[in-house]
């Protein structure tokens, strides 16, 4: 089959499947990304806190999860959750292996990994805040929450934005690894397609192009957001 027909939207085309799988990739990556932001915020707060125990926990979290392959973390989550579910199911009389929900375990796994990157980004953004401005806020009697809302968050978000954009790109690419658990996202769909048509290169080329498209569009969106975020900021050049 010629390439255009293969990836087209006709009766034998795989166009719709590939687009649906792209949507799934974006969905699972977005969930993992949000989980990562949450973990990154908690981790950064723990790392910057005064308590040695929290600092050590944050330190251990980054050391372990940044030094171990993402694929292993995905296996751990998928098979770990599955074995818990299987044992619960067998207690209720079910037999055999019960797979964990792949979307959830995949999103959790890449969320946990990307959380370590986000943590570094947020830590850097926090440390880049000017101490003088925070003191000034305190000096005019701002309560903590107001200080956070008016002085800290707007600036920290601006400092963090470029790094957060990088993490998003990483998460998007790491989401391809979730295909090993069977979730039909872009990578898995390309595997299915190449298995049934014997045209693997066409499928992986298309998958690669779709990943490029998503990274390119979201990269443009982040650059736009970055430009907006520095409106009115004096720049030294």
């Amino acid at each position, binding site marked *: 089959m010629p390439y255009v027909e293969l990836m087209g939207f006709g009766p034998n085309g795989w166009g719709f499947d590939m687009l649906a799988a792209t949507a799934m990739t974006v969905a699972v990556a977005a969930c993992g990304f949000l989980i990562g932001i949450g973990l990154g915020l908690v981790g950064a707060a723990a790392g910057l806190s005064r308590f040695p125990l929290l600092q050590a926990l944050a330190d251990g979290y980054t050391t372990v999860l940044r030094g171990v392959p993402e694929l292993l*973390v995905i296996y751990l989550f998928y098979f770990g959750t599955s074995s818990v579910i299987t044992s619960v199911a067998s207690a209720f009389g079910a037999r055999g292996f019960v797979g964990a929900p792949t979307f959830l375990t995949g999103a959790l796994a890449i969320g946990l990994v990307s959380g370590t990157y986000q943590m570094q980004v947020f830590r850097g953004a926090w440390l880049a805040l000017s101490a003088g401005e925070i003191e000034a806020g305190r000096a005019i009697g701002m309560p903590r929450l107001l200080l956070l809302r008016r002085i800290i968050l707007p600036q920290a978000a601006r400092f963090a934005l470029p790094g957060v954009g990088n993490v998003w*790109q990483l998460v998007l690419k790491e989401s391809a690894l979730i295909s090993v658990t069977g979730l039909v996202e872009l990578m898995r769909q390309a595997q299915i397609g190449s298995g049934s048509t014997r045209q693997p290169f066409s499928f*992986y080329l298309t998958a*690669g192009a779709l990943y490029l498209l998503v990274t390119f569009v979201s990269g443009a969106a982040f650059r736009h957001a970055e430009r907006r975020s520095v409106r009115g900021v004096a720049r030294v050049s």
Partner: protein
Amino acid sequence: MIGDSFLGSTFIALLAGVPLTLQLVVLSVTAGAVLAYGLATMRVSGKLSLDLLARAYVFVFRGTPLLVQIFAIYYGLGQFPSVRHSVLWPWLRQPYWCAILALALNTGAYASEIIRGGLLSVPAGQIEAAMACGMSRFTRYRRVILPLAIRQMLPAYSNEVIVMVKSTALASTITMMEVTGIAAKLISASYRPIEIFACAGALYLAVNFVVGRLFAAMEFALSSERRAAPSLPGPVVRS
């Protein structure tokens, strides 16, 4: 004995995968470094066509997942009869060489940006001074530009190598039995993912720790002027 407990036997089984993991890392990082140097010189060559070519390469290989690249090379290339009948086919049909090729092409893209940054960081004054001394282009590179550029890019490069150590895990998806491949096999045989994860994770952490130390040692060796001069045993001053 260590081998009697589940944890111990798992650890020993996984240890057998370490040589393959290390081979994949060393070969692909070496080949990738050569490729990256070529790409970086294309970027800084000042010739628009070379620059655009290198940019396009970096864009494609940094914008797509490594897993897609590995599968496109290992499963995809066989789609073309011309590849199947070429002299390279005996290598391209083996997962080992496909994994190394994909990893090298991938790290080449990332490392080219690191090397470019290193080359651009060499102060123009230093290069001018070398020219003024009458150094040839080759000597300039050997004595001035490369030592400064390499030192500048070592921290970023060590991150890239650590990422590569982790990336070799993807070779397990094309049947390579390195550490992660063995771990996946053990997990599906025993359903004890946590212990196996702990052992495999410890091995990767150990490898990455050594990589980090090696790069730190290299950086130390290349930045002699940043260290304090060795103190000579001088006269002892008493107060």
